[in-house]
């Protein structure tokens, strides 16, 4: 059967995120959309990309996407597995990571990210899982890419809580805090690609995914969106990209559904 070339917004987000990765990148990979993008890159144009998961696995090459950050296959396929203190101290803080991936519940126009709480911290209406590795990934990778589905609920004027610092209040705020890395240089959503303005650091839409309008992007964003003067269009997925992505997701779903605990069946 040939690949169905119709694709979903989630698929173009994954494919656009994979395309920006290079064969010589060293990536600090999170679970979910980042792991999908990084492994898709590895299985298409970047076979030598180094994927590092914070559980300590350096150079992992999983056949299916891990459900957790420390699935057995990550360790079994890794070049080496180091301890977690070593991972954060030598590899992340030591400046060895070229690209870190981030996502979260909320993102603002300066790419600050909230993955901690909705509502006030002391009495949250929703207690989210929290930052994990993200606060230091945001500051210590040479640059970060944010991958997030874009909705008015998630792309907000002000985040309720800054878990991971992007550009703060814009301009040279990173430098004023002594942060020397480039920060979030790309935000890839299911609608578009955004990049920070060179001066103000406000996120600016630089490319729309095929068929997406400016109005759609604005209605999914909680602040008045800026668009670049020359607005690009993301090239549509190729058949090879789509079939690789779908094979990976099918293998993953099959692998994660193989057992069922007593009493836990739905």
């Amino acid at each position, binding site marked *: 059967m040939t690949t169905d070339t119709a694709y979903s917004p989630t698929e173009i987000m994954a494919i656009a995120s994979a395309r920006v990765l290079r064969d010589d990148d060293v990536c600090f990979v999170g*679970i*979910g959309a980042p792991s999908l993008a990084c492994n898709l890159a590895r299985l298409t144009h970047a076979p030598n990309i180094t994927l590092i998961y914070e*559980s*300590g696995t350096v150079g992992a090459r999983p056949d299916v996407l*891990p*459900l*957790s*950050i*420390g*699935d*057995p296959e990550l*360790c079994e396929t890794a070049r080496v*597995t180091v*301890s*977690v*203190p070593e*991972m*954060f*101290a030598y590899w*992340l*803080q030591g400046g060895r990571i070229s690209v870190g991936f981030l996502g979260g519940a909320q993102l603002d126009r300066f790419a*600050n990210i909230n993955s*901690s709480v909705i509502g006030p*911290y*002391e009495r*949250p*209406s*929703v*207690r*989210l*899982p*929290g*930052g*994990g*590795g*993200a*606060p*230091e990934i*945001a*500051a*210590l990778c040479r640059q970060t890419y944010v991958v997030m589905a874009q909705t008015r609920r998630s792309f907000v004027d002000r985040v309720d809580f*800054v*878990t*991971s*610092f992007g550009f*703060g209040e814009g301009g040279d*705020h*990173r430098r004023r*805090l*002594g942060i020397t890395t480039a920060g979030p240089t790309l935000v890839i959503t299911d609608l578009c690609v955004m990049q920070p303005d060179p001066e103000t650091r406000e996120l600016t839409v630089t490319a729309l995914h095929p068929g997406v309008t400016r109005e759609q992007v604005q209605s999914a964003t909680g602040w008045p969106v800026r668009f670049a003067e020359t607005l690009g269009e993301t090239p549509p997925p190729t058949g090879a990209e789509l079939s690789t992505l779908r094979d990976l997701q099918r293998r993953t779903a099959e*692998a*994660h*559904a*193989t*057992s069922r*605990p*007593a*009493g*836990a*069946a739905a």
Partner: protein
Amino acid sequence: MTEFLSLHDAIASYVPDGSTVALEGFTHLIPFAAGHEIVRQRRRDLTLVRMTPDIVYDQLIGMGCARRLVFSWGGNPGVGSLHRLRDAVEQGWPRPLEIEEHSHAAMAAAYAAGAAGLPCAILRGYAGSDLVAHNANIRSVDCPFTGERLAAVPAIRPDVAIVHAQRADRDGNVLFEGITGVQKEVVLAARRAIVTVEEIVDDLRAPSPNSVVLPSWTITAVVEAPGGARPSYTHGYYERDNAFYLAWDAVSRDRDRFTHWMHDHVLAGSSSTAAVA
């Protein structure tokens, strides 16, 4: 020297009410059997320390064992929320839970500082994060050589560390393989350490002179607990039960369903059948 104890006796001896306990294992080697024994012995007012609370702390929190939680990422990995943790923080059920929230980098460094006998850990961390404003244990120091402002957090020194490992030999030396997380650091940082193992063997079969081995004299008690990490996993013995992690979302979402599940699968069990089927 190391004692060889039953799981019941290890928890009864070394995990009193009100103590500070760290059950570690970064996704891998999570000491579920020991967590379940703590639930069965109805411990109260514990301070639970763990980078990724995972299902094991969701269960302890939901059963009312904890007064306080020190953590850095409190989700069900790859699935979503820990609903019992959320309920305790948002609604105070079954009792209010104080939290002390860190980042992974800081907690990992704090365990290493504890193992090294230092009072605090120093790291380039928390830059621009609001966590600093909500956790009085995140402070800063200026480097005496360069003047760089660095984050500082207190060393973690639990009353007792509990970890799982592949195996111990008959002298009580313990081998860890695979994702070793902070297993070594938490054992060396804690005043006492309980290690549950898949098996106790004549020969440890450490694969390399650089294997992660903790000598018996660093460990208070060794407990033979085959399957003691399920539904987490033990590299070389059994796989992570990812389907369980997916199914836990529905079990834990509802207070009654959770409570029934714990009664049927944990409270009704003995320490020898602690593993989740």
